[in-house]
């Protein structure tokens, strides 16, 4: 019975993937891409990777999907040019090459496949964490995680730099993203408290159970975007110092903890024995805040209204 479910799921994933690349209309493709993200999340659940599933649903399907939809809306306003056939063929060749390389690597993997899972579990007690994914992210490969958090802020800087000079420090505009309506305002008012609670829970529980900063950040960002799109609040001006400080708070705290590690535990990003878990849980608070702000502002886009 579960084999049947897996086969159907796999066929659905392939069919939706094919639909995404073959439909002509960009909006249909993006809607397909969001559905693809959710199906892929289900596939990760079937592989018992609930952490990856949550990230795929929140970032892969949710955040990326909204970003692409906003991108299409901007292109429709006459700001984009049609692309030539050569670009399509080039993109298809590169993607197909990638897919073939990954398929080759997976199909030719030795049996049993090489794994670092036992090594990850062996030292997990030293960190005091219950979730091996969090142990990898904050313990063994903390440098990667640090750079990941910085990359998100850099991406936001890239988006902000798209604004014309006169508007660059002003407000992004989300008014066109939804028709003004009481219904949306009602949803924003009702759902946001639940979403906030759930987002905070995801960040909190990440140390021992599936969850973590990116998933929590995506949920919190969605709630803020809902409030912004419903018109209950204005998006902040990009020159706002408090906002810029909050965006840097997560990476800055992570860096500070990293340097403190040199002095307390003898290496960059090392945690003193016994204190690893409280430090990691404390770090997750500013990291989640920064990620949530950055994701929401990525969707909000470059400033479109002059600063006042």
């Amino acid at each position: 019975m579960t084999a049947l479910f897996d086969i159907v799921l796999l066929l659905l994933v392939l069919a939706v993937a094919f639909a995404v690349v073959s439909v002509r209309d960009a909006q249909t493709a993006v809607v397909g891409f969001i559905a693809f993200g959710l199906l892929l999340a289900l596939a990760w659940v079937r592989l018992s990777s609930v952490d990856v599933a949550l990230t795929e649903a929140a970032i892969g399907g949710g955040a990326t999907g909204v970003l692409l939809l906003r991108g299409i809306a901007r292109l429709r306003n006459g700001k984009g040019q049609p692309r030539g056939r050569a670009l399509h063929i080039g993109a298809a060749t590169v993607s197909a090459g990638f897919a073939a390389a990954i398929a080759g690597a997976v199909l030719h993997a030795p049996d049993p496949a090489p794994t670092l899972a036992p090594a990850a579990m062996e030292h997990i007690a030293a960190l005091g964490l219950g979730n091996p994914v969090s142990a990898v992210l904050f313990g063994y490969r903390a440098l990667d995680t640090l750079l990941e958090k910085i990359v998100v802020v850099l991406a936001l800087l890239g988006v902000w730099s798209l604004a014309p000079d006169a508007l660059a420090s002003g407000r992004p505009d989300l008014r066109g993203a939804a028709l003004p309506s009481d219904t949306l305002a009602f949803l924003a008012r009702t759902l946001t408290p639940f979403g906030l609670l759930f987002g905070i829970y995801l960040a909190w529980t990440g140390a021992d159970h599936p969850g973590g900063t990116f998933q929590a950040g995506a949920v919190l960002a969605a709630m803020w975007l809902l409030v912004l799109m419903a018109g209950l609040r204005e998006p902040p001006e990009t020159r706002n110092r408090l906002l810029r400080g909050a965006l840097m708070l997560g990476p800055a705290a992570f860096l500070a903890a990293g340097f403190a590690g040199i002095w307390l535990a003898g290496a960059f990003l090392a945690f003193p024995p016994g204190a690893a878990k409280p430090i990691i849980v404390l770090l997750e608070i500013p990291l989640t805040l920064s990620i949530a702000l950055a994701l929401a502002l990525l969707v909000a886009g470059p400033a479109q209204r002059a600063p006042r």
Partner: protein
Amino acid sequence: MMGLLDLFTVVAVAAGAFFFLAGTAGLLRFPDALSRLHALTKADTLGLGLIVLGLLPQAASVSSGLKLALAWLLAQLAAVTASQLIARFALHERRDG
């Protein structure tokens, strides 16, 4: 006694699945956005409601039963609002076009 509860679960979940199937058929077959939405929301509301109702007797504890009910309520809230928004957009487009 357990047999009766299990039977209830099977019947309710199957009925829920049937409504999802009917809603999907409506989504694919109906001619315009509003009637498709009508089919979809009716199926969603009844389908998910019946599935959650059917799963309630299988819940391991009171708190997991409450979680199921809460998930249903939140899905309801999101689905109902989203369909209102889509309907409004469809009317808006119809008036403009």
